[in-house]
């Protein structure tokens, strides 16, 4: 029973990781840019939900389109102002830029909203849970997990089925060829950043009921997302999805049976082990 509960927890936690990672893998796979500010975009989404809740009494689920919209916009702004200028820069310059950006966003949040830890107190879901025999499933977690899966599915469909999605795929394969075929790659990049923003926007909203809102809230999620994206294979949406679940499970099972202090170390270890057998990630070729 306990085992099942632990596995379930791992899957629920992992599916939220997945969504954060899916947003990151889009950008990473397409532009070969490590976005250090990814977790911080999520933090902005959490604050959006928090303020809509505090000032206007919006339920987080009502705020979802707004917060996702704001992070999508933020993604575009980040692309237009910063990423565009460094996307062709040599070496690790793009990384430097996003790192600076992350530092800026975090401290800007502290400047505007103080460093206090805040919570979205009440939502229609808070405190609700499902009991199956001895197994507890928190409704906010369940919704967060389902929302993540749905969102991943939508993104995957978007990439596969729509014209813009195909343009994104083409650009990821080869920017030059895509341009020759008449793809406006700048637009594709901007759209990808917006998509990435929507992912973290939704993830932040879903998390705001169960995770404190504070300027550093995105830090650990951002770090884990790096590992998950690499574990799944850069640019691979479903790879990121399954890798997220795998990391969630590792964290839960490893944490439960070996000691909770090791849970992130174990996630990193899984990455190293898997990459010994699949040097380009679980789903990378």
């Amino acid at each position, binding site marked *: 029973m306990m085992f099942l509960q632990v596995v379930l927890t791992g899957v629920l936690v992992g599916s939220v990781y997945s969504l954060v990672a899916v947003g990151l893998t889009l950008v990473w796979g397409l532009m070969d840019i490590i976005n250090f500010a990814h977790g911080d975009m999520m933090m902005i989404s959490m604050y959006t939900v928090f303020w809509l809740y505090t000032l206007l009494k919006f339920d987080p689920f009502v705020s979802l389109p707004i917060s996702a919209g704001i992070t999508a916009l933020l993604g575009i702004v980040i692309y237009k102002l910063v990423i565009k200028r460094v996307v062709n820069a040599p070496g690790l310059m793009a990384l430097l830029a996003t790192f600076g950006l992350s530092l800026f966003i975090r401290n800007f949040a*502290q400047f505007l909203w*103080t460093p*206090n*830890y805040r919570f979205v107190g009440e939502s229609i879901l808070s405190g609700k849970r499902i009991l199956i025999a001895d197994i507890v499933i928190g409704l906010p*977690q369940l919704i967060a997990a389902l929302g993540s899966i749905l969102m991943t599915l939508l993104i995957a469909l978007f990439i596969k089925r729509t014209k813009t999605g195909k343009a994104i795929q083409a650009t990821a394969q080869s920017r030059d060829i895509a341009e020759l075929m008449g793809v406006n790659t700048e637009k594709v990049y901007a759209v990808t950043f917006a998509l990435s923003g929507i992912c973290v926007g939704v993830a932040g909203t879903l998390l705001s009921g169960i995770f404190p809102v504070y300027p550093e809230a995105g830090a650990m999620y951002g770090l884990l997302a790096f590992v998950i994206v690499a574990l799944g294979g850069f640019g691979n949406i479903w790879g990121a999805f399954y890798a997220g679940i795998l990391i969630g499970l590792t964290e839960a099972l490893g944490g439960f049976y070996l000691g*909770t*202090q090791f849970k992130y170390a174990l996630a990193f270890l899984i990455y190293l082990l898997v990459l010994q057998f699949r040097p380009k990630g679980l789903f990378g070729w």
Partner: protein
Amino acid sequence: MRKLLVVFAVLLAFTVFAEEVIKIGAIFPLTGPAAATGVKIKYAVEVAQEIINGEHPEIELLLGKSAGLPNLNGAKIQFVFADHQANPELAMAEAERLIRNEGVVALIGCYHSSATKPASQVAEKYGIPFIAGSSSSAALTERGLQWFFRIAPHDGMETVFFFEYLKYLNQKYNANVKKVAVVYIDNEYGVHAAQMVKEKIKDYQADGFSIVADVKYPAGATNVDIEVQKIKGAKPDAIFHASYIGDMTMFVKKYKEFNVVPKVVLSYCGGYQDPQFVINLGKDADYFAGPNATTSALFKKMAILAKINEMYKAKSGVDIDGPTLEDFASAIVIAEAINLAGSTDPQKVLNVLKTGTFMAPYFVSGRIKFGPDGQNIYSASVMTQILDGIYEAVWPEQYQTKEPVPQFPDWNKR
């Protein structure tokens, strides 16, 4: 014309007092993961500065009545703030800079014990007093430093306080608390607290106490689901928590979700003491308990504390809490020591700190006196429990504002 006179007077005042400003360094985590607490402490120290420098006869502190330090011709105190970002390297660098460049005559800080360690070593090197308000690691006062003092009870004292409280509950309310779980963050603060529990429990095994779970979680955790399931599996009567406000809040939410119902939850000086805990959790915060240097419930009983809190609340928007009050005390004590010494000569100030007893009417203990190791021998804490959203003082009995509730009710019966 009158305006002009006022301006003139102010200018005059400035020129007169300009050279009589005594600088004291205050190093706290003003950015980074612990910035929330650091900024609150900064407000409290600013309140202390106002009380010392302004005329506040309503606050019956030694330095409240007069403007400035009376024994130094009304010299003003200025706290020079520095940020260590929870990084010991920066704490060390800032301590040295404050001493050498800003010319501070004493230091207070640093909240994080890991930052206090190197910073106080710098103070020791330069022969300048260092008073830690809220850093609670027992190791700090075990280093044999001459110039280091600490106001807060250290985690060893807190642990004893916990067991004594549990004994009290068992005796008076027949609470039958025996099995203890220790839940702590994997850093200096948490690990040290847990070590103290493992050490002190030896003295209390005769009373039937035992440790049934030892749950250490990584700093910056994204969730605490697994931790809570481990705790649930161990079925403890009491949980000792060493957690910061963010993690603590997540734990409470998960206790509710997984229906973990211990009898008592006691928290080391950290997240529980932050009033944000009640703001974030509302009713779910009820029945949690922990030692605290102050509580809003005590404001009714302690007029001075209420007045200090008024000033503090005007700045921060929340009531003053324990760690913050302890750092406030460090600011007041160092100013009083300088005043009593009648000079900023470090040796004289040190003598006052080593021998003197300081009135601290804002603490329930009422005074502060440092032992030979620099530790305040009067524990300033009371056991508090959140009842109806208010931190009530529940033990020792003489400070009681309400009786403790020795048994958590079921989560759905709140």
